[in-house]
């Protein structure tokens, strides 16, 4: 049996097991607890996020305990950035049913950046849990469950909440004019919440000249912004740590939505960057009113 540091509890807890090796070494051999979590924006209220959960693969004795009210099954959603934590009890009164479905709605204004969701089964009573699938290395096929014990946990699903102006990946790019740069030179700094692009005075003047016409804006996009976003996407693929920044989260979410709606989109960063400038992917929260 595989001991997973910081995860193993010293008693059987059902978890995700994707490979044959994992299944053989799981606390409940041959089993896999992988609830399906899907999140989206409510079409009738863009400030509301819904999370659909479909519970699959729960071991029958654990499922039976839920049906007998000896244990509860929860969906827990947390956002570290905004001190948000919510739990929803999933209704499952019919122990004979194999699937538990439910939906949680959350005010999107209470979330920012990374959001985590997972499904947990927690005992709320004392009882004896018996299963032939308990890994023989435990040396028993039944054990006493106490109130508060974790019986099953899903992997954590992660997604990102960011709202940016419509149809405009430029919203996560900041242009800074630097006297040290000449002609068409530019620099890209990714170690900030926004992608910071340094440009010289010459390039700034040319961009400003063209940006207010449709053709000129398109030219600016292709000459400057698409290469910048391409570079950022390339780096993002290499290093997951960039997802800590707002630009990394915005691009990740936007691409996921694009891939969902545009199955023919190619996966190379330069193709993705161009697609991001073509499709409406982001929502608007800021007023155009100026002080």
């Amino acid at each position: 049996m595989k001991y997973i540091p910081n995860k193993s509890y010293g008693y059987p807890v059902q978890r995700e097991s994707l490979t044959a090796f994992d299944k053989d070494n799981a606390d409940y051999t041959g089993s896999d607890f992988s609830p399906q979590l899907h999140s989206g924006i409510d079409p009738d209220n863009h400030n509301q996020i819904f999370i659909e959960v479909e519970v699959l693969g729960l071991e029958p004795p654990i499922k039976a305990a839920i049906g007998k009210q000896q244990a509860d099954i929860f969906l827990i959603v947390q956002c570290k950035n905004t001190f948000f934590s919510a739990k929803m009890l999933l209704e499952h009164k019919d122990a004979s049913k194999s699937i538990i479905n439910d939906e949680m709605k959350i005010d999107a204004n209470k979330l920012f950046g990374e959001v985590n969701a997972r499904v947990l089964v927690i005992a709320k009573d004392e009882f004896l849990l018996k299963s032939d699938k308990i890994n023989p290395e435990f040396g028993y096929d039944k054990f006493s469950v106490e109130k508060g014990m974790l019986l099953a946990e899903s992997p954590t699903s992660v997604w990102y909440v960011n709202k940016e102006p419509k149809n405009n990946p430029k919203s996560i790019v900041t242009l800074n004019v630097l006297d040290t740069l000449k002609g068409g030179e530019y620099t890209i700094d990714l170690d900030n919440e926004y992608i910071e692009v340094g440009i010289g005075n010459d390039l700034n003047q040319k961009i400003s000249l063209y940006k207010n016409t449709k053709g000129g804006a398109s030219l600016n996009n292709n000459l400057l912004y698409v290469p910048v976003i391409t570079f950022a996407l390339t780096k993002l693929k290499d290093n997951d740590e960039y997802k800590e920044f707002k630009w990394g989260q915005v691009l990740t979410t936007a691409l996921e939505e694009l891939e969902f709606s545009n199955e023919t989109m190619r996966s190379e960063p330069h193709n993705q960057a161009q697609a991001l400038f073509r499709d409406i992917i982001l929502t608007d929260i800021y007023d155009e009113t100026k002080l």
Partner: protein
Amino acid sequence: MKIPIFPQSILVDLYSKINANYNGYMNGFDEDFFKRFNVQTVINTEIASDFSDELVFDDNISRGNLDALNAIIIYNGLKDLTPYHAKDSRIWSALNHMFFREYTIYRHIKRPNITSKEEKLKVIGKRFFSKTSRQIDSENVSSRLWWSAYVADQCRGDHDFEKLVKTLCNNTDLRNSILERPTIFQIPQVVLASLLLHEKYPMKREVYRDWIKLINFGGGKHIYGAMSADELLKLFEQYYDEVKS
């Protein structure tokens, strides 16, 4: 008026010119200063145009209590500011420049240990601007106070909001644990149980540190997110007894 927001480019520009604008930060910006910027506003929000006048400046109040009082004023005064907005440094920088300049000088710059221009510039950079989420929570002059009040409001239940904010602002170690390392403290009932125990047993740093260690370890064994505040209060009190004994 609506709550202002700086475009990111203005933010970058201002940050690079802290030295050039030093007199403005210390003595007040001239009338045309903000007219040069494309300052925008946040939809569906409101702030009184004379909001700065509501802030408390009082040398006879401890810094913790001063923070608590102003945290509540800021939290109530920024109408309809959502947690999503409150993670946006562009909003806080605009607010700091337009409403909190004098308060920043009073609270963070006019201190006996800050004497040279260099030190003052450092504080201006740290308090008027934020580059990371953690800086928004703990260093930015106004957002750190808003988040303190928000965290207390989130967990308050039937408890006294003002008392909870005071407990939070007066216990630096606890405040730092909650606002700077929110892995377990993102759970409102964990925050509430911790604040209530602090009200009941004011803790010295040595006791607090061992106590918080036990809470952290306990988070590996218990699913705090699925427990009620009452259950957590009992558990954390057990940890406190353990530390005391």
